[in-house]
């Protein structure tokens, strides 16, 4: 049980999320990918906190806590935007929302 294992887990989770963001067409799945990436970042914070020289500062835990709160806000606004896009364009496909096409 050392730091490397958790960093590796976090790296895999991050790559999974990144792949989802870059390759899935559905906006909700893109959002899911973003959530996975955020989770990976939080896991990193907690792991570094756990193995830090002064864990009683709780720096990593605090950062993860605030990041969870911010992520909740981000999901709420993101989903509201998706619902709005769906209502306007009748699609949740990020590739269909290409009104800025050159």
């Amino acid at each position, binding site marked *: *049980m*050392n*730091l*490397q*294992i*958790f*960093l590796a*887990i976090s*790296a*895999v*989770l*991050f*790559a999974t*999320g*990144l*792949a989802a*963001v*870059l*390759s*899935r*067409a*559905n906006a*909700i*799945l893109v*959002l*899911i990918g973003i*959530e*996975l990436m955020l*989770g990976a970042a*939080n896991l990193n914070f*907690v*792991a570094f906190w*756990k*193995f*830090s020289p002064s*864990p*009683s*500062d709780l720096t990593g*835990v*605090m950062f*993860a806590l*605030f990041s*969870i*709160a*911010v992520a*909740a*806000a981000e*999901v*709420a*606004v993101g*989903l*509201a935007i*998706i*619902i*709005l896009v*769906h209502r306007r364009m*009748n699609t*949740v*496909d990020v590739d*269909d929302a290409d009104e800025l096409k050159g």
Partner: protein
Amino acid sequence: MIQNILNELAADPWGVAGKWFALAPAAVLLLAAAAAVVARNLVRAALALTLSFMALGVLFISLGAEFLGFVQLMVYVGAVAMLIVFAILLTRPDRLRRTATALRGAGPAAGVVIGLVTLGGLLGVISTSPLAAGTKCAPAATAPVARIGEVLMGSHVAALLAVGVLLTAALVGAAILAIEDK
């Protein structure tokens, strides 16, 4: 390598089992995340995501951050997952249109390749980093609730207030965005 593991197993079976068992949530986390990403059915993707959130919470708990793990469960499973589910049901695509959830074409493939390259780079960095190799688990690292309260209301109080404002603004903003035009 295998011999080492077997020796260790013979010496302290319960400890070794515990060690591997502690990684079970990580396995669930990664499998569920992968399932969420490749799922064809959106609702199943959301359910897999929920499972991965749960596993991440359990992982936090096993790392000693109990409070954070519970918060993760409460916020993500109780709120975020349900929000996503609601969004999925509110934005069901028309039957006539393509469902557009398939992983096909050059673009998505490029995305997957970028993800894999990133993974390779990260794993390379992690395996060679002197920071990661040197440190060992500090069993004393726990986050008692009282201490979290002190820190949150002490040195982080400005951030706490800012988060409160942010959440309120996000709530109002989301409501305004999603409200039906009368």
